[in-house]
């Protein structure tokens, strides 16, 4: 399983891949931090996303989205929402 992280401007129209429920999706995308969320841990001016699953599928999705790949060590610390399996990777 591959893990990828992205950042985007808060007004960017990041679109979720549409998978039907009960199907095994090729990857799972999760919003990890929204800078406009008044209760967020950090307000960096960017939104952060994480994805886990098949790297090629994640890359294909990201290519069509207004997101920039970032390494894990460039996520805000602490990140607002960091569920499993990210925190176990």
């Amino acid at each position, binding site marked *: 399983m591959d893990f990828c992280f992205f950042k985007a401007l808060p007004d960017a129209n990041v679109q979720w891949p549409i998978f039907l*429920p009960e199907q095994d999706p090729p990857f*799972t995308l*999760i919003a990890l931090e929204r800078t406009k969320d008044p*209760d967020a841990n950090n307000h960096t001016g960017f939104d952060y996303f994480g994805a886990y699953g098949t790297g090629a599928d994640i890359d294909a999705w990201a290519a069509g989205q207004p997101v920039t790949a970032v390494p894990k060590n460039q996520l805000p610390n602490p990140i607002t929402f960091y569920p499993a399996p990210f925190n176990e990777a």
Partner: protein
Amino acid sequence: MTTISPLLRVKERIVGPSGIYNIQNEWYGYADEFKYTIGLAGLMGFGVGCCPPELLPADMALLPGTEDRFSPNYGTYIHLPSASIQCFVPAHFMDVQSPGNTNAPFFGSKIVISDTQSGDAVLPKAFKNNGGDLLGVFIDKYQGSNCRPDGSGTPNHTNGPGGTPLTGGIFASRPLQWPVSATTKDSGGTDFNSPFSLCNSTALNGAATTPANDLGGAWALSKTRGVDFAPIPIWVRSQLAFLSLAHAQALLDTNGVPIAGATTNAAWMDLAPYAPKGNNNNGADINKTSLAFARTDLTGANASGFAGRNSRAFTGAARISGLAAVEHTTHNGQLSGIVDIQGNQFDTAPGLTAVGTGAGDFRLFPASGDWTATSSNTSITGAAGVISLAAETAPGDDDGVWFAAAGASNFLVAHSGGTFHPSSSFSNATRQAMTETLLPRQLGTSGTQTGTNIFGGDRFFSARVNNLLPLVGGIWLGAANSGVFGVFLDFTATSTRSDAGARAVRLLSA
């Protein structure tokens, strides 16, 4: 001799915040009777209200604060035999207007809620049943779970991590419990789901039967609580969605920005989209990432933080920084509202079905029928006076069912003529039926999602299937697709879904 003067009662005028941009949002009457109304959009207490005590069913009781508009328990009642918590939504009139533009704060769909009728306002289908009008509807505050049939409201599970759901339960609306789903438990030694079928006690209703583990099982499931309960119909769910939208519009200024103090009366006004948030992002809200749902059950037994499978949360689990934040998930943005109204699990919302896959095959249960007496989709299609929705006369005519039989994703958007058919067009029964069952106009949808518009990018999954049973609200991985206006039409009464739960209603005749 002592002379006793009668108490002087003076009528008062209460004005809601939407008055600042000239929509009718005020109430005039005796102040002590205001609590029996739906309230005023934008104010504390809007969206729920009190049941007149002389009409309260004998087996229901008030909670501390039920009649205090500023209490978390405002408009909240307990069904004593099952310990179910329900919210009372008083009958009201609604005018869905299309202001002719998509400007803030209405974005093409102006929702006017009032205690009195005026203009094109109608008494929504949610408040009509069995040929008469309703005083209001008791609605489950929480998605139902499998509870012991002893009135304790405790989970009908074994002890241990998460507990193993047991047979012999009743369907009850309780906080921090594992909501039931329309599927089996799963084999292999792991209890992924709490199935409908284990709510099979006849303790509260001798005529109750074992629910099937499919969407159609929602009827039998509701009856385990009592003969007066029925699954929440789609027209009651639609009314909750319109109440949310009216509340948001009353708290926005003409630039679409929340007015000062808006979050006091609707917690979800703190972050766009200005609509209820929920567990739609695998344990958090997609927009409000600080709103997290992983939480142990009432006994602290479930170490995973989730209820069985995947990221399904316990009922009313929302927290921010470890503190309860349930008001972000309610239809009115207040603690008094109906919880987890989007995300987590679909609500099974019958009432609209289909007898085939044609555009003219949709059928809606009529207001002349008794919803509480229904037991399946057959009760709908066989009802005297069943409403047949018309197919659109020709593409673009905007007068009927416009979508294809094959499943397709559509996302709600603003339109100058309204995202939904306005009340002024309700002389056409199909248009009224579409609005009251959350079927948008074709022009009110787009193939491209905008997750932060007034509808939060809610998804209308169109399809035409025989024996339809709609699902509404969304699920734990639905992202922006989930929302109070989210509707899926691609499932049937025999569909098995591990992500679909249920709520019950109790209708109160006027």
